[in-house]
């Protein structure tokens, strides 16, 4: 059943679809056609596989976090080390896939939105690699929070365009990228970074990210001889979780848990807990859950992590929630910050603030489970980009 999701209208159950201006509809149809065509070609798949292997360093390891497991006392914890990818996060998987597709489609210019800057850096990287002209739209607020990533993108030859509309964060960077695309749709390919937006993006991004779950499945079978009991991933728009969950959807014995950003708490107005506190509606091209008021105005999100600071979520996650196949839980800024320090001290791995949300929930869950249970946490990115921000937050006083 899950194999045919989404349907030909881009629907995951009632979620998904294509709610965009008419100007973009032909471009989306062309993109869908091109994707379905090329993704079936062995030479396309081989090029993507080659770059993932030789350029990004895949497969990433599935690492048994022994000291963390011991510290928490309970279920055995494995980390899927997406942080070991080139550019430091899972975002490169999708950027490589889409950039190769853009090239096959004969497009020489690519654009992307970015929140924390990871997708922007990944896109700028593959654009440099494949000789594509690259523009990245980033909320002005985020360009300040993630100044190093801005410079990184510039070093890679990309143009970074600060977005000053609306909340000046990821949501408005997405709007601005779509607006730019509407004007330049003839010669420009939009590399969307999350499992969100109009069809075919949620499907395509999931497909390019499913390598995370595919590898994990194979690796855990090799290392443990069985599937894990629980798989945990953080969700903003939901690309790393979509890729991690997808190969496990039909393995009903594997519990799938997405961890969203509760910011300062789900009972405050400052969070990004789209699944816990949001309602159904149309946002940025698809029908899903979003944070909104009763009149359908989108509410600003808040999270300590720029990558989760987004009031929407991909439609496949909305579907998995609606059929009860995955559950979605919140973790606060403070819990994420604590988890980041915990993982740093017990394992010598500084996770990205986004991924720290997944660690935070694993740290809660593990002690409640017996020692023969297995939890896999997707460590979607490394924390280097966040170090300056964390230093400010902790007053330079990490303990």
């Amino acid at each position, binding site marked *: 059943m899950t194999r045919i999701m989404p349907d030909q209208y881009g629907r995951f159950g009632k979620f998904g679809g294509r709610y965009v*201006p*008419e*100007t973009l509809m032909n471009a989306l149809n062309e993109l869908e056609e091109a994707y379905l065509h090329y993704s079936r070609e062995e030479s396309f798949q081989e090029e993507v596989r080659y770059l993932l292997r030789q350029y990004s360093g895949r497969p990433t390891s599935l690492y048994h976090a022994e000291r963390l497991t011991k510290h928490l006392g309970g279920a055995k914890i494995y980390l899927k080390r997406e942080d070991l990818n080139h550019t430091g996060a899972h975002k490169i998987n999708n950027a490589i896939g889409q950039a190769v597709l853009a090239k096959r489609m004969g497009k020489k210019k690519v654009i992307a939105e970015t929140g924390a800057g990871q997708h922007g850096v990944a896109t700028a990287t593959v654009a440099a690699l494949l000789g594509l002209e690259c523009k990245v739209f980033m909320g002005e607020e985020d360009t300040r929070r993630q100044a190093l990533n801005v410079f990184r993108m510039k070093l890679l030859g990309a143009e970074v365009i600060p977005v000053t509309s609306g909340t000046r964060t990821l949501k408005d960077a997405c709007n601005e990228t779509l*607006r730019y695309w509407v004007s330049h749709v003839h010669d420009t390919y939009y590399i969307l970074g999350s499992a969100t937006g109009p069809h075919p993006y949620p499907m395509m991004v999931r497909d390019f990210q499913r390598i995370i779950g595919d590898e994990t499945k194979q690796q855990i079978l090799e290392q443990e001889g069985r599937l894990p009991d629980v798989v945990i991933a953080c969700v903003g728009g939901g690309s790393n979780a979509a890729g991690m969950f997808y190969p496990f959807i039909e393995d009903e014995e594997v519990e799938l848990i997405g961890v969203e950003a509760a910011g300062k708490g789900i009972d405050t107005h400052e969070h990004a807990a789209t699944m816990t506190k949001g309602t159904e509606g149309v946002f*940025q091209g698809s029908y899903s859950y979003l944070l909104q008021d009763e009149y359908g105005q*989108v509410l600003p999100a808040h999270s300590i992590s720029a990558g989760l600071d987004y009031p929407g979520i991909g439609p496949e996650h909305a579907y998995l929630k609606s059929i009860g196949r995955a559950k979605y839980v919140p973790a606060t800024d403070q819990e994420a910050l604590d988890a980041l320090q915990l993982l740093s001290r017990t394992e010598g791995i500084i996770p990205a603030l986004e991924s720290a949300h997944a660690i935070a929930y694993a740290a809660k869950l593990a002690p409640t489970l017996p020692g023969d249970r297995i939890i896999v946490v997707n460590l979607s990115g490394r924390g280097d980009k966040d170090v300056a921000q964390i230093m400010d937050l902790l007053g330079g006083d990490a303990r």
Partner: protein
Amino acid sequence: MNRIDEVFASLKERGETALIPFITVGDPDLETSLEIIQQLSDAGADMIELGVPYSDPLADGPVIQRASERALAHQVRITDVIRIARLARERDIELPFILFSYYNPVLQLGLERFMKLLVEHDISGMIIPDLPCEEDGEVKRLAEEHGLHLIPLVAPTSEQRVQKIVSRASGFVYCVSSLGVTGERSQFAESVDSFIGTVREASRVPVCVGFGISNRAQVEKFAALCDGVIVGSAIVRKIEEALPLLRNPETKQQGLLQIRQFVAQLKG
């Protein structure tokens, strides 16, 4: 008979084309919007698009984005926008109103309730810029049931989609003049003439052109090619420029007059 159809029928008899101004309702506030609607009517507008301010207007350029932000700063809601149509009728403004809204505010109101409210407030049709024909089934069905027009957009990139969109159009077809978001353009691609020609040929209902049209010369150019011209950002910009006047009770009439004069000269 729907008011939109009546207006096009009478324009046709007189051999004229429609001028359709757009405003973001609630910019700068609801009371002023009502007075602006009066000015547009007095200046010779044939119909008015009432824009619902939205937090994420992804088809709009900076001018209308700013207008949205100004209206949202004091919580103007879709229901307020609908209500203003009735208030305008009380002032004996008789021209047809078309509600322009992104889909989510409509959806959250509930489609049935939305349609009923439009009928109750004598609004004749709707434009939903992020609802392409693949997704509009339920809205289209309910609009027809309520005697309302769901006005579709066609773009220069629509190509083989034109036929399908135009064949199910009601009210009129909104032809997007050029790629990109709303906002004034200094020039248009030469291909726009043949694009409009194609749409007109395919359409049983009137064809109006919008996006980027900001002065009398451009209105004249497009009026010669189709049945109506929509002017949005240029008017919203005029309102923005008149804000200091509009906000001061002593100069408010002067500000309103400027908007009226601008629209009157567009009408010619």
